[in-house]
């Protein structure tokens, strides 16, 4: 009867921050069920269903490729402008959708959180996992468009999961901060779509290779926005063997690997900072959550 005999200690909140990783791992089945629920529910009662995961990146691709690539003439890394934009829009859409859902997660789950105990962190973690399905669909579109352009994905594509994990960490960091803030201030739900839009322009519109050479090492400050390294890295991993330009008759990579690493190095402190701040503030709010929401 008592094989899994456990003792629970209930005490006033104390300590700086206790993520309780062991507990998160122990109950991982619940995270699986919560993701499964969100995936099942997401496209219920929609006429087009999963088609939405295809339509959104395609429409975005056409808009960005046409307006900024063709008409605006922004640099497109030596690639077809549509492909160049799609390769960053697919990861960006994953991040943006996850961030919006994460920031609303605690308030959305409030009826559950005030009636039953489970590791609260699952609530903001959930969107980053359940949206992986949409990312996979978006990624297959990207592969199709890549093939249409006559390109075989580069061997560095094996690094893609790395950039996805990076995005998850940024999303969970800032998202759990916002979700906790939203518990107190519902302004957050008005602010987030706006924030995501501004962030998108700062990340997707301009690519690193478009920054003037004469800025030298200062250009890497662009990478302080940790999403720059993530989406640029995503495109780079898939397509770097075709991202080339001619300089003085020589073919050189648009984004050399060491430049990308510098960009990511610039973003790393920001990413870790956001994650630490987000989790810290989340754990702080978690203590009073059921009394406040």
């Amino acid at each position, binding site marked *: 009867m008592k094989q899994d005999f456990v*003792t629970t200690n209930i005490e006033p909140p104390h300590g700086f921050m206790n993520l309780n990783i062991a507990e998160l791992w122990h109950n991982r089945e619940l995270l699986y069920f919560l993701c499964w629920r969100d995936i099942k529910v997401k496209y219920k009662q929609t006429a087009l269903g999963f088609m939405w995961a295809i339509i959104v990146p395609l429409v975005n691709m056409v808009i960005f490729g046409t307006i900024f690539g063709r008409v605006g003439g922004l640099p497109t890394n030596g690639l077809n402008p549509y492909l160049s934009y799609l390769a960053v829009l697919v990861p960006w859409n994953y991040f943006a959708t996850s961030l919006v859902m994460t920031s609303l997660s605690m308030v959305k789950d409030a009826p559950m959180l005030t009636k039953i105990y489970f590791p609260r962190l699952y609530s903001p973690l959930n969107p980053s996992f359940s949206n992986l399905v949409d990312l996979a669909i978006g990624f297959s579109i990207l592969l199709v468009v890549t093939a249409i352009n006559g390109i075989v994905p580069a061997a560095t594509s094996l690094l893609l999961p790395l950039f996805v994990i990076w995005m998850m960490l940024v999303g969970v960091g800032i998202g759990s901060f916002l979700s906790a803030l939203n518990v107190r201030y519902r302004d957050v739900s008005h602010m987030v779509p706006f924030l995501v839009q501004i962030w998108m322009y700062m990340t997707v519109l301009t690519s690193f290779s478009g920054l003037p050479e004469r800025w030298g090492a200062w250009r890497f400050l662009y990478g302080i926005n940790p999403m720059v390294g993530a989406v640029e890295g995503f495109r780079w991993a898939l397509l770097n063997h075709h991202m080339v330009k001619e300089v003085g008759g020589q073919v050189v990579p648009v984004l050399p690997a060491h430049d990308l690493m510098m960009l990511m190095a610039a973003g790393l402190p920001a990413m870790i900072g956001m994650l630490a701040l987000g989790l810290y503030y989340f754990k702080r709010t978690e203590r009073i959550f059921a009394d406040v929401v």
Partner: protein
Amino acid sequence: MSRDAIIEIEGLGKRYRLGESVDMTRNFRETLMSLPGYFKRKAAEKLARARAAEGGAGAGGAAAENGESPAYLWALRDINLNIAEGDVVGIIGRNGAGKSTMLKILSRITQPTTGRAKIHGRLSALLEVGTGFHPELTGRENIFLNGAILGMRKAEIERKFDEIVAFAETEKFLDTPVKRYSSGMRVRLAFAVAAHLEPEVLVVDEVIAVGDFEFQNKSVRRMQQLAQEGRTVLFVSHNLAILRHFCRTGVLLEKGRIVHTGPIDDTIDHYLARSHVAQHHDIDLRKPLDNRSAGSPPFFTAFRVFGNGRPSTISTMGGSLDFELDYDYPRPVDGLRVNIIVRDINEQVVVQFSPSQQCPEKLVGSPTRGTIRCRVPWLNLIAGTYRVEINAGDNEKDIDRIPEVCEITLAEHDVFGTGKALSRIHGMVYLPCEWQTSWEKSAAPSAR
């Protein structure tokens, strides 16, 4: 006591902040506006703490109520309690006595401010039926989701799946989205999942007072079965009959403190006895009240209630209740209406006493102040807790309304003289009726 304590509670307390901060879902502007108040409060807190330190800890209980910053409320204070393994414990108390707070702390939904509790074993809490149900998902999917949320493993749910479905009696609708279920079906399914949890400790909050009567009976039986299997059950209910029937031990809470523990019958007697001293049978309505919606000026000035002829909010099934309403209004009220509305704990109106409907002539030309009395000589209501609203109005609008002026408790009474207890699962009212039986001579019991 040969059995070990499965739950050990030591000095447990929970403090809530009152006033402006109760509603903390504010926007930034409000926060900025309230900053000066915040600093003032912090300063006051510091002062109070310094004073408390000087005064020493001897003040104890009294300090909690009045000594400390009035911005705080102790919903639970100094709770010390050991619960033996296999015990079935009923937690009793008026609204606001801290019952729900205690369950929420034990189920880890909220954290205590002071003290500690140790639970040796898996604890499942049922504070609501159907937590986490998703309307778009089918019955089958919701069984898995809800089971997981309640702490079951996937393998465990799969093993008990057929049992759960059979208990809920919803086989035919397993692949229908739950949003198409009737509310009764939804409740049955939800309770079925919860009823198949196998924790060492089960915490239940009034949830079995849902569903139709037949299903309530089934739920109570299932809970009893769990208890007989040796699980520890903590149970909160307003329904003294169910508590008496179901629990072995009782814990009586009053204003956040334990005032009595012991066998359930003792505890219920204590509860009833203490309520006789009730502070609430005579209520001064000239003082400001929460949630009163009154025109200016208010109409009612006092409210008194007499149970079985004594000044008390307690009466018995089959007993009597008297209400007295004092009023004082600056001008005569044209077309005065006065209502006394009695609701059960599920907010359902049970009965309404209105002179304006029952004897309108008595209110015609009433002077600007006086007393209105209402006598209910025979309460054929089932035992339980009821809430009383009083309101008054003129031809056009309400002029005074107090939605919860008091809570009255009807104790059980063997009204049919058969020794069988009546409780809420047998209905809301009882009525005398006459039975006749007749048999044909040939249809002797052995014939079939």
